[in-house]
C-alpha cells in the first residue's frame, strides 16, 4: 500500500467478503477499462474510494485492477471518469453482481 494511503486495506479480508457475494463473471469481457497510461495519483484515488477495493498495487507496486468482484456502484466513474477510467458500462445480460439481501 502506498505511503499516501494511511488506512491499510486487508485484502485477504476483502476478498473473503467479496467471496460471499453472488457474481456471474463475464470472463474476458471487462465492463470497466482504464486508460493505458495510468497516472498513479489518479489510481490511488480509486484505491481509496472503491468499496470493493478492486484497485490495488501488485507486488511490483504497479497498478492492477480486476473487474471481477465489481459492485457496479459507479463510484470510480464519478471519481475519475475524466482521467483514467476509459470505459464504464453496465455488464452484459445476467452478468455481474447479484445481491441477495441488498
Amino acid at each position, binding site marked *: 500500500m502506498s505511503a*499516501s*494511503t*494511511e*488506512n*491499510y*486495506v*486487508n485484502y485477504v*479480508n*476483502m476478498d473473503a*467478503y*467479496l467471496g*460471499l*457475494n453472488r457474481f456471474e463473471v463475464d470472463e474476458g469481457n471487462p465492463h470497466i477499462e482504464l486508460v493505458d497510461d495510468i497516472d498513479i495519483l489518479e489510481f490511488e*484515488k480509486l*484505491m*481509496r*474510494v*472503491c*468499496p*470493493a*477495493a478492486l484497485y490495488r498495487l501488485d507486488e511490483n507496486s504497479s497498478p492492477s485492477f480486476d473487474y471481477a468482484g465489481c*459492485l*457496479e*456502484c*459507479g*463510484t470510480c*466513474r*464519478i*471519481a*475519475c*471518469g475524466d482521467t483514467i477510467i476509459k470505459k*464504464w*458500462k*453496465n*455488464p452484459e*445480460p*445476467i452478468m*455481474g*453482481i*447479484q*445481491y*441477495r*439481501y*441488498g
Partner: protein
Amino acid sequence: MSDFQVIVVGSGCAGSVAAYELAKAGKSVLVIERGASAGAKNMTGGRIYVHSLREVFQDMVEHAPLERRITHERISMLTNDAAFTMDFSSRSMLEAGQDSYSVLRGNLDVWLADQAEQAGAEYIYGIAVESLVKQDGKVCGVRAGEDEITADVVILADGVNSLLTEQAVGFARPSPSHMAVGIKQVIELPGSEISSRMLCAEGDGAAWLFAGDATKGLPGGGFIYTNRDSVSLGLVATISAMRDGKETICGLLESFKAHPAVAPLIAGGKVVEHSGHMVPEGGYRMMPELIGNGVMLAGECAMMCVNLGYMVRGMDYAVAAGMHAGRCAAKAIDAENTDKAGLESYVQALENSFVLKDLRQFQLFPEFMESNHRIYNEYPELIRDAMQAMFIVDGTPMPRLKNSMLPLLRKVGLMALLKDARKGMKAL
C-alpha cells in the same frame, strides 16, 4: 404504432411503482430491468418511511416484506476513543403514516415488481438499456444491443448511476462533490439477540447513525439498521473528500466495525453480503430537468435524495415520484400529447408534493455539511471532553462544571460555534 405505450427503465422503488400505476390505468407498459431479478443490483441503508407506499398500495402494504418497525432513533458522535449517543423513541413514530421500517432491497424490490406484474405490466430482466431511441428530437424508445423497442413515453427510473440521463435531458455526469460512496455489510445475528442488543421489543428495531470517527472526520457517517435476523451496517462518504483524503473506504469500514461502541453490537455476527452503491447528496441544486420530449425522470436518476446526517431519504421520494410519473404519463397518453409540454403535469405534481418541497427546503444543507469540517472533527471531541468533565471521577476535587466547560468551548471558538449553529439552522 409503438410497441408499448410506456417503457420504464429500471425496477427499483420508482420504476415498479410507475409501472404499477400505468398498468392499473390500463396502459401497456414494459419494464426493463438490468438485474437478473428485481433488486439484484440494488442496495440501500435502509429504512423506508412507508407513507408514500401506503398512498400507492393502501392496505396491501401490510404484506410488503418489511423487516422491523423502527421504534428507536439513535445518533452517536464518535471519537476514536469515545462515543456519545442520543436515543429517541416516541409513540408518534408508530402511528400509521408516520411509521418507518428497515428493509432489504432483495425482498422489497421483488414484492414491488410482483405488484406491477400482477396489475398487468410486462417485464424483461437481465438486460440493460444502452441508449434511447430518438426521432425528430423526441424520445420514442430504447435500445439494447441490436434490439430496439418503441414507446410513446419512456420513464427513466434507472437510479443514481444512470447512464441515460445525459441523452434524455442533457444531464452530464454529476460531480464527485455531489455524490457519496456507500459501503455496507449485512451481518447475520439471531433475531432475539438483535432485539436485546439494540434495546428493542421483539419485531421492533433501531435506525442508528454515527458521525465523526466513523469516517475519520471526512464528510459522511456510519449507519446501522436492524433487520429481522441481521443488521445492515455501513458508511457513506462524499466521493471528492474521500478521493482526495488519506483513508480508504474499505479500511474505514473495518475500523468502524472495530470501534468500541460498535463492535459489541455485531460481535459473533456473520457477514453474509458486502455491497456498494452511491448516494446523491447535492440536493435540489444538482437536479436535472425532470422531463424532456417523450421522457420523464423519477427517483435517484434525477438525484431525488436528501442526506441530512441524522436522516437519509430517497426511497419514499422514489416511490412518490414513480407514482406521479405513472399517473401523469397515463394522462398524457389519454390526451395524445406525450411531448415535453404534455408531460409538464408531472413536474407540477412533484412541485405540489413533499418531494420537491423537501428537496428545495434543504437545498442549502448539502453545502453546509460538506464545508463544515467541525461537525466531523471538533464537535465529537468537544462532546467527549464535556462528557468526561461530567462523568469521570478519580478522587481529585472536581472543578465547577462551568470552569471545566468554558475552556472546552473556547477551544472550538465561541464565534465558530455560534456561526455554525446559525448556518445550520438556516440550512434546515
